[in-house]
């Protein structure tokens, strides 16, 4: 087995105190730069408990950098980031480790460990944080998480190199969900999927969010995803979050980029689909299919 993913074998002391606040993710005054290039300057963002927050912005506006900062992979120049009530920016490497058992991260390419099978990938976080779990239960968990993420059950013993791009994303999602996290970070989960696969992925996320009571931080360019599953949308432009709100609220602002984004041909098409689906669903079921939007202003 690859040494990078070898397990330490002893149980960690974890602080798993329940988070009772309203905002599991709080970003204040975040500034990041790479040499001369300033990515974020005084960026603020709050993510509410139990919502799916979509993050949009043009290419290169620092959406992924923001996610990497929140999960502690990118140390910002300035600013405060709190996740589940604890500061990420002040944390030393070992202090914040137990927070990592409470979030799951899906990277753009899946970032699966290439020397392990899909199921072994899912078992890595389990073994790392809860080595006391019996191997039998570990295997059972890996199996159902893989199926829960929408992969066929035979996929468990496949190596990442044998999977298609979409399957890698699902396998990455299975690993992100391994510890039943409270927070889920998704970096462009539907990019590169076919429309049917992308719609199924969206549905899966809503389904999982409902079943597992997740808070989801979702970077996407997929307008359908934004319309279908996001409770609120944060727009990044000019190195900060220029607006956060439901899509109707965003449409009410007069920022040029937002207008162009949502009212461009693709934006209109996605909205039309959403409207059509809703009007079709209403008489049949009497209420919208989507989760109640706790969001709003």
């Amino acid at each position, binding site marked *: 087995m690859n040494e990078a993913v070898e397990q330490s074998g002893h149980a960690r002391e974890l602080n798993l105190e329940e988070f009772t606040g309203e905002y599991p993710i709080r970003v204040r005054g975040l500034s990041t730069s790479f040499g001369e290039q300033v990515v974020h300057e005084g960026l603020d963002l709050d993510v509410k408990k139990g919502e799916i927050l979509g993050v949009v912005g043009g290419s290169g506006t620092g959406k992924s950098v923001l996610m990497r900062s929140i999960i502690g992979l990118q140390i910002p120049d300035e600013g405060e980031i709190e996740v589940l009530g604890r500061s990420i920016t002040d944390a030393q490497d070992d202090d914040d480790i137990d927070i990592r058992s409470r979030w799951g991260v899906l990277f753009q390419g899946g970032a699966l460990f290439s020397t392990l099978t899909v199921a072994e990938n899912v078992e890595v976080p389990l073994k790392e944080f809860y080595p006391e779990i019996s191997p039998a239960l570990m295997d059972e968990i890996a*199996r159902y998480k893989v199926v829960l993420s929408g992969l066929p059950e035979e*996929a468990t013993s496949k190596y990442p190199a044998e999977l298609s791009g979409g399957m890698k994303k699902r396998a990455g999602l299975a690993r992100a969900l391994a510890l039943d996290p409270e927070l889920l970070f998704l970096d462009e989960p539907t990019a590169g999927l076919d429309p049917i696969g992308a719609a199924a992925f969206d549905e899966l996320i809503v389904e999982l969010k409902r079943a597992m009571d997740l808070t989801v931080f979702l970077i996407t360019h997929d307008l359908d995803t934004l319309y279908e599953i996001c409770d609120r949308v944060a727009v990044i432009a000019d190195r900060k979050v220029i607006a956060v709100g439901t899509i109707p609220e965003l449409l009410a602002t007069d920022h040029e980029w937002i207008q162009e984004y949502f009212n461009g041909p693709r934006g209109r098409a996605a909205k039309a689909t959403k409207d059509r689906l809703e009007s079709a669903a209403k008489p049949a079921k009497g209420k919208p299919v989507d989760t109640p939007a706790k969001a709003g202003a």
Partner: protein
Amino acid sequence: MRELADYSLEPGGDGGATLAFHGPMVVSGIGPVDRKLRELDQAIARVDLSQVESLDTVGAWTAWRVARDHDAEIVGGSDEANRLIEAVKASEGKGEIRPERGNLAERVPEAVGEMVSGWGEGSKGVIGFLGAIVVAIGSVIRHPRRFRMKSLVRQIELVGVSSLGIIGLMSFLIGIVVAQQGAVQLEQFGAEIYTINLTGRLCLRELGVLMTAIMVAGRSGSAFAAQLGTMKLTEEIDAMRTIGVSPMEALVLPRILAAVLMLPLLGFYSAVVAIIGGAFIANFALDIPFFTFLTRIQEVVPIHDLWVSLVKAPVFGLIVALAGCYNGMQVKANAEEVGLRTTAAVVMAIFMVIVLDAFFAIFFTEVGWA
């Protein structure tokens, strides 16, 4: 301490007991109770979830598995709990966790067989690769504009110029060791003046180029393998092909040429620095003045020693670069393979260099360049 889930059994009238879970039925607290449950051997009619504090999918799975294995009914779960149980129930999978492995008696002969056939395949592959290089050279000769001068210059810098420091230092020290140790032995029969012959001939003919080849294999051969291997993994090489750029011409040829061109120069440089190192130690330890040492070198080292090393060096360069590029291009599937192939490149290169060096030593002696 972490809170753990547990259960209690209440004997029931009909068909079996009621198993009541309590505590947090979540992934962080499930480990011990799961082990206990697996050893439980008792008829259970009902699984009671009403005292459970919190439940996640792992807890739901455990509750459902107990109910399934004992043919029991789940009672007392909240709506949320029932939803979770439905979700995991629908997701039960039976796939293998890891690919099946045969027993040891089968695996060992299989591994040996694979290794042996791998040697055969490998030699065939290397010869094929050499052929592809020749073809690439041919097409570059026919279309000289396709030759990547910039790339060659860059590789010459990496293979040659930037290794001058480390090769110089290594050679200087080797010169010192050879001269000093040689002198200790030769002194025993009063022939320490032959230290000069020993140092000069050995370094120029053998050590300079051999040590340089080993150093270049470690520095550049490994870099070739790792870089090409990573490019293979990230599909950069496929992308080049689709654009119509031949990876052979664009990547392999400049590296091979750079190594073939640089090794004679580096080998000669190494020999010169080693002789200086020998002269340096002779000056202090053997009372042979520095410049006397250098003058004597001209008298005692025949010129054909230089020719020998200059014939060997490009061949060694070819082998080092070939091993690096070939192994790099063979990478597929995963990151571990980049490491394995890089190791293989260096081992293959050093081994072949030493084998060929032995061959050259005998060959040149036989043809009279003793």
